[in-house]
């Protein structure tokens, strides 16, 4: 673990010691992270410690800042003009908010899957090797091997192995999203960020994505934004509840949904608002 944080981090219930967030190596650790769109604050003093190789869900009503927080972790907010970030965010022992950070290198370590599947309008194979070529992997057989491994890991291989040269846009919505996951893991990131990856999919496709996430959990640290509270209970180990840009509560998922400490959390997870 890095140097002790300036103020206590939200910690898990003491009774579940072996997997409690504070005892596992944190993959992402933020301290007093604040983000402003112009003058408007979108995140206020977020201090979280996201453990390695677990699934952490970010929940909260629309506009609470959960996607914004997710996009801090691979600096995608850089694309938006007039965004200002203060505080610290450590990934792999490095404060990724530093000016000197190689954002390109960071994004190779921290992959992202978006709400709306966004395969490139090219062949399935071209989608898969896009990131590999950026890494300088040009050897065809090496590419083929990684493509197969990644597609298998994304539970898509059997469906597409005979049509790798076909346009990715011919796939169904769920397949496209699994292709995007496969494309993201092809470059072997450590962390996978998912921004409501199943919100545009039907229940069966959603189920497959959820199974996939539970599967990927062994190898990747996953942070997922979701609107769907059942989904959060099904797939996540920890849950952070955000409200108006603040982390109201961060704890083991079971605890958040059964014995939340905060009244606001309880109101939200029981459907009283949001």
């Amino acid at each position, binding site marked *: 673990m890095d140097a002790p944080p300036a103020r206590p981090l939200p910690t898990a219930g003491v009774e579940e010691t072996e997997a409690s967030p504070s005892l596992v190596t944190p993959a992402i650790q933020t301290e007093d992270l604040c983000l402003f769109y112009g003058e408007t604050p979108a995140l206020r003093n977020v201090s979280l410690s996201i453990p390695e190789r677990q699934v952490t869900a970010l929940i909260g009503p629309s506009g609470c800042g959960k996607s914004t927080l997710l996009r801090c972790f*691979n600096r*995608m907010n850089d*694309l938006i*003009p007039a965004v200002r970030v203060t505080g610290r965010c450590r990934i792999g022992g490095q404060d990724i908010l530093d000016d000197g950070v190689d954002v*390109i*290198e960071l*994004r*190779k370590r921290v*992959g*992202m899957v*978006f709400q*709306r599947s*966004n*395969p*490139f*309008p*090219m*062949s399935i194979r*071209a989608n898969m090797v*896009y*990131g590999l070529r*950026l*890494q300088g992997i040009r050897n065809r057989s090496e590419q083929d091997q990684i493509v197969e491994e990644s597609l298998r890991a994304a539970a898509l291989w059997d469906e597409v192995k005979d049509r790798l*040269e*076909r*346009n*990715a846009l011919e796939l169904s919505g769920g397949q496209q999203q699994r292709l*995007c996951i496969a*494309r*993201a893991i092809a*470059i072997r990131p450590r962390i996978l960020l998912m921004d409501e990856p199943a919100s545009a999919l039907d229940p069966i496709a959603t189920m497959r994505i959820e199974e996939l996430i539970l599967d990927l959990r062994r190898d990747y640290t996953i942070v997922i934004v979701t609107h769907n509270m059942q989904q959060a209970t099904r797939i996540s180990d920890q849950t952070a509840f955000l409200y108006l840009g603040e982390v109201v509560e961060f704890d083991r998922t079971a605890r958040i949904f059964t014995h939340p400490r905060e009244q606001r959390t309880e109101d939200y997870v029981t459907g009283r608002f949001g």
Partner: protein
Amino acid sequence: MLGIVLTGLATLVLLTLLGALLTSVLSGGIPAFSWRFVSTIPRKDFFDVESAAILPMIVGTTLRVLIMTVFVMPFGVVTAVYLSEYADPASPFTRWIRSAISNIAGVPSIVFGLFGLGFFVNFLGRGLDAVSGVGTPELGRPSLLWASLTLAVMTLPVVIVATEESLRSIPPGLREASLALGSTKLQTVWRIVLPQALPGILTGGILAVGRAAGEVAPILFTGAAYYTAELPGRLTDQFMDLGYHVYVLATQSPNVDQTAPILYATVLALLFLTLSLNAGAILLRSRLRRNQRDAA
């Protein structure tokens, strides 16, 4: 009901006008139109049906349009990419560039002719001549190069606007996907954005070619010749041009009645050339779209 009547009327008026124009050009031009007419260089009097020919004009017009395309496309596309992918839309500098582009689009074409003469021929050409120290003017006189460049400046806004339009139509999600995989902005533009925008960029090229092929005013002082004995062989040569030749035939002929069929035939050739340049570009674009659909 009224709408249908008005639409029908408008269609009718337009088709009648177009039909009348084409009929008059065709009926007037076909008698003088022959393989010899389009494939030889006029050696004697080009106002006379027997010796009139327009090969040099066809070559001249084609060359100036192609050379213009070579200059205007990269410039226009790079400008559009800068404006839409890199420039801060709120900065005054970007606003200046944008208003400069719309101003270029609004300038009358004869002004481009004078600009070309003043800037390219006299300033740039003579300046370069003076620097290289040649005795006789080499670049400091009207030529194919300066005429094409003048046209390129004139058509720049067309290419920029069409390219920007097509860049805007690319879903932002594709750019995000590419960046999130660890590509640089340049790699994203080069490998994802530009290939997707190519059909739209070609549309800009088609519009520019269509606009430039029929223009005479910009080349009047910058490269078009009343008569040259040879086909243009170098960029510094002057050239004969179809549009300018139409003007010459219509105003300089010693015998108007005798020249009329040649005039019509030349107009026919100009229409045909403009049409085929456009058709070529459209074909290229549709092939590209097909390739993109089939993916690779």
